[in-house]
Structures are given as C-alpha cells and as structure tokens.
C-alpha cells in the first residue's frame, strides 16, 4: 500500500474540497477539515504500526516514481524513524490546530482591544490542509529536489495564513517571513542544483537527485563546504538560528495562534530536520569542518534567545524567542554528532512541537478572550480561570524542560550527548535551563498570579472545545515525559544510521562502568 503518497494526497484533496465549498458553509468547512485531518491521523497511526524499528532498509514505505527523468528527479518518498516521528508530530498537531482555530476567522467579539473583521473561513481551513500535505511531503521526501519543492511550497499557505489572518502588523510580518525564507531557499536551490551537477557518478551510474544515491557522491572538500553552506543557511533561516532569527518573533506574534503552532511547531522543524538529514549525511566532511561554527551559533542562540525572551512584553513574541533558544538546543544536539545528541535533538523536535504548540494555543485562547498580546494587560487570571492557568503552567513548565515533562528527556539527551564531546558548549547551553525558568515563570507570574486585573475580570475558563484542544497536548507532554521509549526506539536506529554515514562514533567513557553493569546484571 503506497502509504505516503496517500498521506500526502488525502489532505491535498481535502484542501481542494474545502476550498470548493459554497460560500457561507463555514461550519461545514470546519467539520470537513477536522474530519480530513483526523483521517490523516488515523492513516498515519495505521502506517506507524507497520513500521519496523529494526528494519535494515534505509527508508521504509519507500515509493519512487520518475518525475523529470532528464535531470534524475524523482517523486521519491519514504520514512525512517526520524521522518516518521516528525510526520506523526505534524498530523497530531493539525487536528488540534483545526479545533483550536474554530473561531479564529470570526469577527472579534465585542470589547476586544483589536477589532478584526470576519474573514473567509473555508480558505483558512483549506490552507491548513494544504499545509499539512506539504508538511508530510517535506518530511517524507527522499529526493532532494522533491524536498526542495515541498520546502518552498510550504511558504505559500503559511504566507497567506499570516498575511491574511494575522494581527495588525500581519503584512509586514508575512513579507518578512517570505523574504527571509526565500533568501534561504534561493541559496538552497543553488546548492541543490550544484549538488546534482557536481556529484561524482560511479561506474555505470546516472546522475540523480535521490538522497540515497547522493550520499558520498560529493567528495571534493571545497565543493562540500560550499554546498554545505548553501543548505545550512537555508536551514538556519528556517530553524531559525541566531542571527537569522528576527523573522520568527514577528511572524509568530502576528500569525493566528493555530498558524503560529504550525509555523513554530512543524515548519521550523524542517530546518533542523534538514540539518540532520541533508547537511550531515550529504556533506559529512564539511559538517565536521563547520561544527565549531554551528555550535557557537547554537549556544549563542540558546543564551541569547533566552535573554531576549526575558525582556519581551508580548506573550507570543516571548514564546517565539524561547523557541529560538530551543532551536539552539536542537542544532547543538544535531551537530554534537553523538547518538545521544542526535536522538535528543530529534526527540526535541517532537517535544518542542507539543510544548510550544500548547503554549501558543493557550496564549491564543487568552488573547481571544482579552484581545491583547501584552503581558501587562493580564494579571491574576488563575483566580478566575484556574484550568486555563493550569494548562498554561504545564505547557510552560514543559517549555522550561521540567523533568517529568516531555521536553526534559530531549533536552537532557541533547546536553548529555553534547557534553561528552564538547563540554564547554554544553555547560554554556545548560545556562539556558536557568534562563528558561526565568522567562517562563516570570511570564506566568505576571499574567496568572497576583491580584486579578480589572481588565480580565469575567474571563471565562476553558470551554469544552478548548479542553479537547489542550487535553491531548498535555497528555502527550506528560506521557512522553515519563515514557519516551516508544519514540526513542523508533528514532535510535535512524540516528545511528545517520551517524554511521557521517562516520563518527560516540566517545568511550573514561571508566567504562556501564558495560560491566550489563555483564553483572546477567
């Protein structure tokens, strides 16, 4: 069964269907979108049950069709553990986002600080589905060219979601987002084409864009370095790493909450996913050469993002800056090139999607009630909306990687994995843990604690729909915090495969105690 093409096709067709609905059928559009996204989720779960973690194949469920034979371009899809968990992240987030965005296109209620007119509902939901198709496609692509196509095409729905449905400065934010991404994308396009041109074709082989065939074909060190930079800068803009980050706070702050979740939760992961998949495996020597640079960027991003987050006055911008800090962690894990760091970074991508997604959605609910993104407009919400505050706290604590919540496992793995090879960087990165506590708890204190502010009096607590939005995320956050094994079991072989392609191995401990422990245990 061609699982992945179906997975891409279902939401794409759904998007078309939703956009073709007659005018005025807003409710139907929402229900149809939700149904399609749930179908996709069910299909993904069905696919995941057939995934075999121990398989020797590089990609499972692989399907390859010729697309442009003249240039060796294929419609090639397939997943390994890394791609699978990220696809799972996407398809889990989409129904939640759909449910959370139920009223996002309505006109703003009375008494809102910012008056928003009613906007086309079906277009918005069709865009979400279109985006879902592309998100699945980008993670499933096994052809570099196909990856690039999805990578760039994803911008389009997101551009409209920000530019048409966002806050007061939406068009500035949308254009900034688009220009930044296109800048990165352009560099990547050059690198993609150059990769095709400069590949060393083995005897009897053909030039190809297929990822598995490209591995090891770029041998010249200088070429590797240039191509690595081409890919890396695109991914660094996407991820985003400091100093390519300033589009994210604007985009995330202006985007509607649901779009912000998809943007930060999934779209940006394409950047770090790309680093892990393409930068490392296609250009291993260049990756090793540039590792110090990337590590500096990551560590600076971790600390800098956190410090700037502390100083924010706008909740959505604050969360965006925390994400910049978190992306630093992910990049650190990827470029530590240890099995722990890699597994941690991959797990971090998933967990960050859930925890930041939850934060954005809950903040979105707050903003929907009050109409302001500014922290100073809130205060004492816990007293009148305890559930909302509780959910906010759990999501926030996950953001600061509290043990027992999902982010902890990944952050711990990243740090421990990088500490074994780059202790100094890891120690500086660990400072981010302290700063995380400051930015999250300070925001929580200013919005939720203290005497109830005049402006939030009469604020409603979570309603049924919102509980259904928040509950799955919190369950995932807590569940994965205590039992991350199912994900790690899927991720580990893929990470090991990646690292063996790069040709690195974990450093051995100075006093190997673990081996003896296993021996003693038997």
């Amino acid at each position, binding site marked *: 069964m061609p699982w992945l093409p179906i997975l891409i096709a279902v939401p794409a067709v759904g998007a078309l269907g939703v956009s073709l609905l007659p005018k005025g059928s807003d409710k139907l559009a929402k229900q149809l979108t939700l149904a399609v996204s749930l179908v996709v989720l069910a299909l993904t779960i069905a696919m995941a049950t057939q995934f075999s973690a121990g398989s020797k194949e590089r990609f499972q469920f692989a399907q390859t069709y010729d697309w442009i034979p003249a240039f060796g371009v294929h419609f090639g899809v397939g997943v390994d553990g890394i791609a699978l968990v990220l696809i799972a992240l996407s398809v889990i987030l989409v129904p939640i986002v759909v449910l959370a965005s139920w009223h996002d296109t309505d006109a703003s209620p009375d008494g809102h600080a910012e008056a928003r007119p009613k906007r086309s509902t079906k277009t918005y939901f069709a865009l979400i589905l279109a985006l879902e198709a592309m998100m699945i496609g980008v993670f499933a692509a096994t052809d570099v060219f196909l990856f690039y196509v999805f990578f760039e095409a994803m911008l389009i729905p997101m551009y409209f979601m920000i530019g048409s449905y966002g806050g007061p400065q939406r068009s500035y934010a949308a254009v900034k987002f688009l220009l930044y991404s296109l800048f990165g994308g352009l560099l990547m396009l050059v690198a993609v084409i150059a990769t095709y041109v400069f590949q060393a074709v083995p005897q009897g082989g053909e030039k190809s864009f297929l990822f598995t065939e490209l591995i090891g074909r770029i041998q010249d060190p200088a070429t590797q370095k240039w191509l690595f930079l081409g890919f890396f800068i695109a991914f660094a803009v996407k991820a985003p790493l400091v100093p390519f980050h300033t589009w994210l706070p604007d985009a995330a702050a202006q985007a509607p909450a649901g779009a912000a979740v998809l943007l930060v939760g999934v779209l940006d992961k394409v950047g770090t996913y790309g680093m892990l998949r393409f930068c490392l495996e296609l250009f291993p020597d260049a990756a090793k050469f540039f590792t110090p640079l990337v590590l500096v960027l990551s560590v600076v991003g971790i600390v800098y993002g956190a410090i700037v987050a502390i100083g924010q006055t706008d909740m959505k911008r604050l969360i965006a800056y925390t994400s910049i800090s978190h992306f630093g962690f992910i990049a650190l894990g990827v470029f530590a090139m240890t099995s722990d760091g*890699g597994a941690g970074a991959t797990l971090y991508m998933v967990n960050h999607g859930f925890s930041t997604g939850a934060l954005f959605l809950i903040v979105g609910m707050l903003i929907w009630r009050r109409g302001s993104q500014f922290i100073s407009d809130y205060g004492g919400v816990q007293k009148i909306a305890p559930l909302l505050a509780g959910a906010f706290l759990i999501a926030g604590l996950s953001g600061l990687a509290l043990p027992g919540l999902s982010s902890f496992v990944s952050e711990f793995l990243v740090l*421990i994995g990088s500490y074994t090879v780059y202790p100094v960087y890891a120690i500086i990165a660990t400072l981010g843990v302290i700063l995380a506590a400051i930015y999250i708890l300070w925001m929580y204190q200013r919005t939720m604690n*203290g005497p109830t502010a005049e402006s939030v009096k009469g604020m409603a607590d979570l309603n049924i729909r919102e509980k259904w939005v928040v509950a799955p995320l919190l369950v995932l956050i807590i569940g994965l915090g205590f039992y991350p094994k199912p994900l790690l079991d899927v991720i*580990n072989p893929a990470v090991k495969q990646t690292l063996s392609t790069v040709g690195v191995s974990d450093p051995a401990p*100075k006093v190997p105690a673990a081996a003896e422990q296993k021996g003693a245990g038997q």
Partner: protein
Amino acid sequence: MTSLLAAAPAAEIAQASGGVLGLSWLMIALPLAGAAILLVGGRRTNSFGHLLGTAMSLASFVVAVLAFFELLGRTAEQRRVGVELFDFIPAGQLDVKMGLLIDPLSISFALLITGVGSLIHIYSIGYMSHDPDRRRFFSYLNLFVAAMLLLVLADNYVGLYIGWEGVGLASYLLIGFWQFKPSAAVAAKKAFIVNRVGDFGLAIGIFTLFATFGTVAYGPIFEHADKASTGILTAVGLLLLLGACGKSAQLPLQSWLLDAMEGPTPVSALIHAATMVTAGVYLITRSNPIFDGAPTAQLAVAIVGAATLLAGAIIGCAKDDIKKALAGSTMSQIGYMMLAAGLGPAGYAIAIAHLITHGFFKAGMFLGAGSVMHAMNDDVNMRKYGGLRKVMPITFITFGLGYLAIIGFPGFAGYFTKDLIIEAAFGQEGVRGYLLGGAALLGAAITAFYMSRLMFMTFFGEKRWDKDAHPHESPPVMTWPLILLAIGSVGGGAFLVLGDRFIHFLEPVVGKPENHHGFNPVAPVGLITLVLVAAGVALAWVMYGRRPVPVEAPRGSFLTVFARRDLYGDAINESLLMRPGQWLTRFAVFFDNRGVDGLVNGLAAGVGGTSGRLRRLQTGFARSYALSMFFGAAIVAGALLLVGNL
C-alpha cells in the same frame, strides 16, 4: 581515604523479588495518583480531596513501614535492594533504566517523608479548613510527597534529578499557593529560579558522571568511583555541592528559603524544614563514594556547611517574623548536616541522624508556629505575641519540647545528634578540626540564644496582642500531629544514637566510620557545648525574658540590621545578578530590535529606498520608455558592430 573506600561495602544490589519491597513503587505511585485524581477531578473532588490526599500519604507511609521491616529482616549485607521499573530513556549510549533502590539510607528518608508528611497532611486538614482551595493544596502536597520519594528512592542520578526538580515544582506551587498575593508569587518564582541555579550544577555533575562512567546508575558509578581521577571526582563533587546548596538553601544560594515562608505554614514545615531542604544532605551522603575520592570537594562541603550554620543562626537572631526566624534556624541546622556530611565517613550517619531528629523537632515547631498564627489571625510578628503559654497549652508544650530538642538540652533529640556533629568536627585533623568545630560550637550557642528569644517573645512575657486577636487552642486535628512530632523530638535522638543503632544501620551505604567510639555524654566537647548553650539561653533571658519586648522593632545595631537584612544576601544578589541581568536583558532586547532586526530592516529600507528612487524613472510616458529601448537597441547594434562586424 581511598583505602577505606575500597573497603566500603559497595555490595551487589540484590534485585527484589516479590514481597513488599517489590511493591515499593507504590510508595511513589499512591501519592502521585492522589495528586492526579485531585488535579484532574477538579471541583468534583472538593468534598473529599483532603481526606483522599491524607489517605494516600498514610498508605504510602504504611508501605514504607512494611518495606522497612522487610529490610530489617535481612542481613546487613543484603539490605540494598533494587527494584527495576521500566526502561526510561533508551538512547544511543545513555540508557536510563528507571528503578528504585531500597537501602537503609533511602528507607530512612522514606519513613521520614511519609511519616512527617502524613502528620502534616493531617494537620493541614485543620489548618486549611477555611481555604476554598484546600483540595488543590492537598494535591500539591501529594505531588510533593511523590516527587520527594522518587528523589530518595531512585537508583540513578536521572531519577534523582527528576525528583529533585519535582520537589522544586511542588515547592514552587506551594510557596505560591496564595498566588493572588504578589509577594507569594514572587517568592515562589525566586525559589524555583534559585533552585535552578543549583540544578544547573547538579545537571552538569550528572553529565560529567555520564561522560566519565558511561552510565548514570548509582551501582556501577559507585563501584568504579575509585578508578576515576581525583580531578574529575572533585569537579563532580563541587557540582553536586552546587546542586545541594540550591536545594538546601546553603550559602551562596540561601536567599530563597526566607522568602519561601510566604507559603502556608504546613508547607514550611514539610518542605522547607523537614524534607525537601534536606535533599542536599541526601545527595551528598548518597554520593559518598564520589566525595570520599575528592577531599577538596569534601572540605568545600564542610566549609559551606559551617558558614551556613553561622549565617542562618545570625539571621535567626534578628528576625521578628516567627516563620523567618525558624527558617533561619532551618538553614543553620542544615548547615550542621552539611558540615557533618563534609566530614566523610565519620559524619554521614550523624548527618542523617541529625536530619531525622531535625525533621521531627523543626516540623513540630513550624506546625506549632502555624498553630500560633492560626490563633493570632495569621500575624507572624512575634513582637505582637507574648504570654501565649496560658491560652495555648498544648502548642506551648509541644513547641517547648521541640525547643529543648533544638538547643540540645540533655536527653532531647538534638542533644545527641548535634553533639555528635560538633565532636566529629573537632575530630578532624589539625586547624581544620578546630575551625569547623569552633564554628559548630559557636552555632550551638547562637542557636540557644535565638530559639530562646523566640520562645520568650512568643509564649512568655506580657500580652502584646492586637486588639482584635482572640487566641485560642487549635482543634485536635492540628494538635495531635504536634503531640506526635513532640514525642519524636524527645525520644528520637536517644533512639537513634544510643548504642550506635543508626550508624550501624547505615553502614551498608555509607561505610564504617574510622575511629568512632559511641556517644559519650561526658566528653569535654559536650560539656563545653552545654555551657555555651546555657550562656545563650541566659543571654536571651536577659534581653527578652526579663525586659519587656517593644512592639515596634528598635533600629538595632549594625549587626542586627545586617542579620535582619538576611546578611545582605538579597542585596548582593540584586546588585550582582539581578540588576546586571536586567541591564543585559534590556540591552539584548534593544540589540535584537535595533541591531539584528535593524540591520535586516535597514537592508530592506535601503533596497526600498533605492527602488523608490529608481521608480521615478518610470514616468508613465511611453515615449520615455521607447527612448530608452531605442537607446538600448542602438547600444546593441553598436556592440554587434564592434564585436562581429555584424
């Protein structure tokens, strides 16, 4: 040291098979389930929430007691029992298997946590009876108990770390329980953040352990600790010490504990006196094989302990807030434990013994203070108390017993354990012994002074109550825990110390002390201690018992102000960390908006400006365009002529 370490019984950890020990995970699971039910159940559980929470805590206590007896039933060598739970983090090299380690050390803590914890649960039923959020309070208490048990029962550093931050979370939630008070919210946040600084050290310590040993489990690490270099062990030891300082409010991370008194009093009793703050002592005792290989780190522990015991005691002398005075005392007492733990195998068991007796008497006193506050309309200012012994006899008696225990009145719990610590400190070689011992001795005197001051100001003297204060004795649900804790304060020390019962019990974990010779009631050090304690009490009597206490605090000497301001700890933090931090944050935000983003926007504006100017070329006159096209055509023609002769 190392030779002794090799002899230390890092014995094989036997796996539990069946029995209560196999079910010991219930100790954690029960209160955790309680917390989950109460939090998820919401208002529906309001009616029985406090009962459920207490029941869960008691059930956990029962499991702990049963496990304890099962452990007692084994021979000393077999008293280290592992319980494998599940595969927690299976990654490449790091493979964390979640498991529990039931040994004399952890079971002692488990008993203390669940025992004192249950009493405080019961007490809180009365104390919080008027609070609309009582259910939430009990769910947080249960959460704390679960996290604290995980901290002490886990068989690896990651499990410990989870519990470590878990209790931090519970502490955060409980300090900020009355979150509508800004001071409480700020105190909660401060506690969490300062703790995170400590956690930073603990985390890096764990990373170093992993990088060195390739595992985070206690068993293999301790077994191979002697093979690692002293440098690494010292580094790990200092990092763990940083973690311990954060959690146990030791210098320089002490500042949060006094603010933490914003929480409800049972919380102060349970978390900020009896259990959580002692986690640092647990960490160091648990990691004894590492510290034994790192004398420098050990010395650092002892110095931190000695410094803190003095600092806490000095702070305790000047506070008029009854809870803050007790908090200073807690700092000081934990300083004693740290000092003892820093003394190596000679001190571990004593530290834990003092920790347990302290758990009893300090919890009792905090609950007593709570009872007093309950009676005085939640006023914490001791200057407005006075003469309460007559209206609150049970509180007075139980508090008094705790008081006698803490100042080390012969026969009471503190007498045994504290004297042992002082003695052990003097037992160190050379100047070090005199300095540490001297500090401990001085601390004992100051302790006597400030505790007596507290006693006299609260229970003796004339009434200085507010007009609307109508003190009364607390209900039985609150007094019974006081009585039970008072029994512990009276007999705990003798029970543990006499005959070296506890020291032998802990031997499988911390090793046998070198030249230990039992408790000697007439040792010279002990006698000097008694004299100093008596002097402290007498001084307090002169200053606060005989003379009337002014309701308004006098300005006081430099030293008083110094102590009242927490030894300028907050001021130092503020000027060294907070203000530069704020500046840094402001600068970073400015830099990000104007620098990084400004660069980008400037680039955009530059492009925009250039195109705005170039745009003017588009006059809209078709003839201008035609002219430029024609001009281009002419150039092309010219170029062709030049290049190829057309």
